[in-house]
């Protein structure tokens, strides 16, 4: 009853419930003209197939009828101006939007012939298959070792300490961090530099053994050198993983991806081979964006 009086509550903050991405809300409510996606939305061997996906935050529509295939062992980049829905879209792929109150998804997103929004689908299983790396590196306040080992531990992937050690080492090697941290695995993960932290987060994701890795602007909080390192890593990881990356930077999209999808106001405007999309866009909006007329 009298809790507000306690000194500890002096700075009382509710965790915001609608906490994601200011940028994902359509910036201006002007009339959406009907946009039909141009380019090939399908690929030969899709890992994820999205059909007619719509996402609503409350009454606001954030994604409008998007259909797109994510190809196996390739990097697809999602680009577009702020508020275009690319982050919202990537979060649909492993149901991270579940934690946002008031978020509703319709349409079909299939992995292995199964709709991930099917009530039968277990999110835990899905997320073990489809890992995610976030905008800001978010290592747990634990040691480097425990950060990597956490995923395998909860999923029971290692039968013993030896196997776990091996997973940790492999993951760190794959993330290109092993040589930098092998001598201080017991140090806290939060003590690393920003770029290292982000690679730690990538290693943490790899350790679970996913097939798909989602990256939501993984370099936006990093300096150019760390960014280059991560981009190189993404290129290496492509051999084993399917990667979806959201990026603000068109140069980055051009450097790391094979396919690129351009989003505009919640709609998928154009998708195609990266080289082709950047040199010879088919849609006027795409051209305006990549030539810098707005963004």
């Amino acid at each position, binding site marked *: *009853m*009298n*809790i507000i009086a*306690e*000194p*500890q*509550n002096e*700075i*009382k*903050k*509710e*965790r915001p*419930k609608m*906490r994601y991405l200011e940028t994902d809300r359509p910036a201006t409510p002007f009339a959406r003209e009907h946009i039909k996606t141009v380019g090939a939305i399908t690929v030969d061997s899709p890992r994820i197939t999205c059909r007619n996906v719509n996402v609503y935050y409350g009454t606001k529509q954030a994604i409008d009828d998007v259909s797109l295939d994510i190809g196996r062992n390739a990097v697809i980049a999602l680009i577009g101006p702020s508020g275009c829905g690319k982050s919202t879209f990537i979060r649909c792929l*492993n149901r*991270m939007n579940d*934690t946002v*109150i008031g978020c509703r998804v319709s349409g079909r997103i299939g992995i292995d012939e199964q709709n991930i929004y099917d009530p039968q689908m277990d*999110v*835990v*299983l*899905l*997320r*073990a298959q489809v*890992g*995610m*790396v*976030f905008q*800001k590196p*978010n*290592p*747990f*306040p*634990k040691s480097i070792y425990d950060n990597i080992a*956490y*995923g395998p531990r*909860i*999923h029971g992937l290692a039968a013993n300490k030896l196997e776990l050690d091996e997973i940790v080492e492999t993951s760190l090697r794959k993330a290109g961090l092993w040589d930098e941290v092998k001598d201080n695995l017991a140090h806290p993960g939060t003590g690393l530099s920003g770029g290292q932290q982000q690679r730690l*987060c990538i290693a*943490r*994701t790899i350790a*679970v053994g996913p097939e798909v890795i989602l990256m939501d602007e993984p370099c936006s909080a990093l300096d150019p050198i760390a960014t280059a390192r991560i981009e190189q890593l993404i290129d290496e990881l492509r051999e084993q993983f399917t990667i979806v990356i959201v990026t603000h930077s068109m140069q980055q999209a051009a450097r790391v991806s094979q396919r690129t999808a351009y989003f505009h106001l919640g709609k998928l405007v154009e998708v195609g081979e990266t080289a082709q999309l950047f040199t010879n866009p088919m849609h006027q909006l795409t051209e305006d964006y990549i030539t810098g007329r707005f963004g």
Partner: protein
Amino acid sequence: MQRTTLLLTLFLMAAAAFYAGSRRSLDIVRGHTRELHSLPSYYGYFTALWCGLPALLIMGLWLAFETSIITHLVIAELPPAMQSLPDERINLIVNDIRNQVGGSAFAGESDPLIQAAAARYQRLKDISAKALTVVVLAVAIAGATFARQRIRKEQRARNMVESATVVFLIVCSTIAIFTTIGIVLSVLFESIQFFERVPVTDFLFGLHWSPQMAIRADQVGSSGAFGAVPLFTGTLLISAIAMLVAVPIGLMAAIYLSEYAAPKFRATAKPALEILAGIPTVVYGFFAALVVAPFIRDLGMQVGLSVSSESALAAGLVMGIMIIPFVSSLSDDVINAVPQALRDGAYALGATQSEAVRHVIIPAALPGIVGAILLAASRAIGETMIVVMAAGLSANLTANPLEAVTTVTVQIVTLLVGDQEFDSPKTLAAFALGLVLFVATLILNVIALYIVRRYREQYE
């Protein structure tokens, strides 16, 4: 003049001074307010402050020391035989005199000496009251006149009034410090007297507590037994039981409310739980003594255990219930301060909600939770009414929660409630216990507040 009347008069005079001051400022500039440095009302406040403040100050000081000075004067007039009596006896005589003055003693019963002293007392009081009236009113008038004479059109009345206000604000803000100093001094002063009679080591490490023996100074074994260890263990036992109840329940409730509950459920359950914190502790004490203790005793009887009707368990359980909202709302804050990014990180790896909570959120929030638990523990240790009403008086040195134990706060209350002389070891022991209590909770609080603050800074 009655004090209230005097006070009222003073306020009226201040109001008049306000009027006179603002009038005067207007007269000086012949109504052209723009020529004044400040608004006329500030000249009014300026005069009123000069009128009221010094007078009030004198009145406060006067009243604070009036009684003790008069008492001293009266005692000094008593026959030497009486004056040489021990302090306790003199106190009794003074009480008699005051009763006589207050008219609560029967006139026939009392000693003519006392009656004479009472008359003297009454006379001094009358003189004092008259003198006070004269002095206060004179000071007020002098202050107002002085201020009014000083009013000039270029005088910065607003700045002066504002400086006075700032001084007032500063004085108010330092009251917290003076309270702490007051607590420390009052407890320390009496404790030192106590430790002059009972060695500190006997008090802190003695295993036997029976202060009742020391009622009369001439009694054999009057030193009593002031070994406080049984009180400390009793306090710890009951607090431990309380924490065992409050920490798991409070923490799980906080986790559920912040991580699982739908907004609607949260909006009703959280305030409902916090009602528990708003219930007066005396109500919990009554509940413990009336419902919980008999219930536990009967339950024990059925199982074949002998449970004291003042068992530590009953008091601890109820105290635990009282502390639940304390733990839960503090933990709730702390858990909410854990950044969303950490949750996302865990979920993205495929952690279930409970795994995220247990492995990531709680470890991240741990310092804050520890701080919250320490604060709750300090509250449990200092809690008085529940234990006074539901725990025992006998100082048993036991760890059995089914037996009756006593606590530091219970002993402070029993030693100080009722009439005792102020400097018997029994009374002083209460202050020594108070000192221990104050120091213990202070340490807990300082550590807890430090941890919580550090934790906050980490995530801000």
